[in-house]
């Protein structure tokens, strides 16, 4: 038994919109081999566990159904490590600006 996620929690659900094999005719081969998937967030309607098929109420009050995949889904995009390839830019152009006219 997994942990019970309470109704009203802010969650993310997952749906397959179009399975591989039912993709639009114009998509390239690599895309045809994989499903068209959707993720959307909202408030969980009833207590459930991760992996259950659940209903959520979105912020526009729509009721959507899908597989429960995350609770309090995080924003994980970031800046990350310094990029050494960009470090030279500032000093270099300031140096050019300081150079006397030849």
């Amino acid at each position, binding site marked *: 038994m997994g942990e019970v996620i309470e109704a009203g929690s802010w969650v993310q659900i997952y749906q397959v919109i179009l399975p591989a094999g039912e993709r639009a005719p114009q*998509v390239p081969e690599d895309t045809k081999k994989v499903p068209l998937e959707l993720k959307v967030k909202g408030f969980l309607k009833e207590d459930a566990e991760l992996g259950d098929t659940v209903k959520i109420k979105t912020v526009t009050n729509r009721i959507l159904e899908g597989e429960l995949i995350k609770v309090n889904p995080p924003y994980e995009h970031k800046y990350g490590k310094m990029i050494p*390839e960009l470090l030279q830019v500032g000093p270099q152009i300031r140096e050019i600006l300081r150079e006397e006219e030849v």
Partner: protein
Amino acid sequence: MAVNDYESVMSRKNEIMKKAVGIDYERFAQGKVGFDYERMMSEVGYKLDEIIKIQKETAVGQTPFIELKNISELARKLAPEGKGARIFLKDEAANPSGSYKARRASVSVYHAKKEGYPGVVAATSGNYGAAVASQAVMRNLESIIVQEVFDSRGVGQPEILEKGRKCEAYGSEVLQLSVGPELFYTFLRVLEDTGYFNASLYTPFGIAGVEPLGYEIVQELQERENRNPDAVIITHAGGGNLTGTARGLLKAGADDTKIVAASVDLSGLHMASDHDFNRKSFTTGHTGFGVPFATWPDRADVPRNAARALRYMDDYVTVKQGEVFYITEALAQIEGMERGPAGNTSLAAAFDLAQEMDEDQIIVVQETEYTGAGKHPMAQLNFAKENGIDVRNGNPDEEEAGKSVIIPEHPSQIRAREVELEKLKSSYLRKVIEETNVKEINDIDLQFLADEIKKTKAETREILEKEFNLSVVGG
């Protein structure tokens, strides 16, 4: 009960769209191949003074207009004697949602409210989502944004993840999809399900909303320098930024100003490919949209696209991803403005073009966009490295989209590379002929096609007859 498989929903496209945008495009039909573009713009859209009033209500526009003195000086140091135009920048990041897209959303959202729609929907992975969401809350409407975000590994493009976060920050419902053009199918289903307004990027509302941007540039420059810009350079993707800005410039009387489009060169990458999706460092402002939308604008989510870039474009140039990252860093390091990166595409091109122009000339870069986690050179370059892209310093001429990102070793390596506009114009004409299957056209058609590619009727006729063996009756 409606059947919701792919084919069934797509077959209801026209009827869904008509309800969701409230425009009967049929009534602008004209001749065998075209439609009355100007009549559509004037009858459906709003007049410039009305738009300015609408935009004032939600704090859109009147953004700072800044002379980039240090970047101009840098360009002058690299240019031959007497060359090196002054570079001005319209700081569109100062709009409420952080980009010029607020202009584009403002009129659609106003119109949706006026017509009594309960909410708005937009299919966009770009800054437009946040713009629609922000304008919608200001007018007490709901919003749903449909985005293409992640590949089949579930890995999201950092820039799009950030744009999704921003939509949610404004209270929007965000539908995050994996790669594929069937996003449009999901979009149609949402429109049907909700009865919301389609805040398409490509209606006359969206395009007319950008006109004040061009208008403000001329007003500001007239006030400060008593002259019109010699060139305005516009980051080009779907064509709306260019079309709207150019129309505004013309409305302000700047008919001698050269209109230059600039896109990031992503040639070789397939935009609908699951594999290629996370191998690009730019999700907009690139040739993957810029070229197909210029050569066939009506591929958009409305029957007649109001963004028709070839009508206004005088030149089209491309820059490399590494060059845009370089200039983005330069903008922060010597102008004290952290913006972009995608919005700085036109700045990278302007930096090179300025070096070919006389030093008393003026080139205007007409936008910036906000920056932040995910939507930043560091985020994009780390992501590129994680996805096996070779990131290094070197000669950007050697950059291959999807394989490498090459940061210039020296600013003199930044180059605006000319796109053959004549070829794009020909491919537009070819597409029209294919789509309409015409064997001959009349004078009205010829005039339409000439306007579409910014040529005279005689020039257009010659191309049609010589290249496509299409005869023009009368005229």
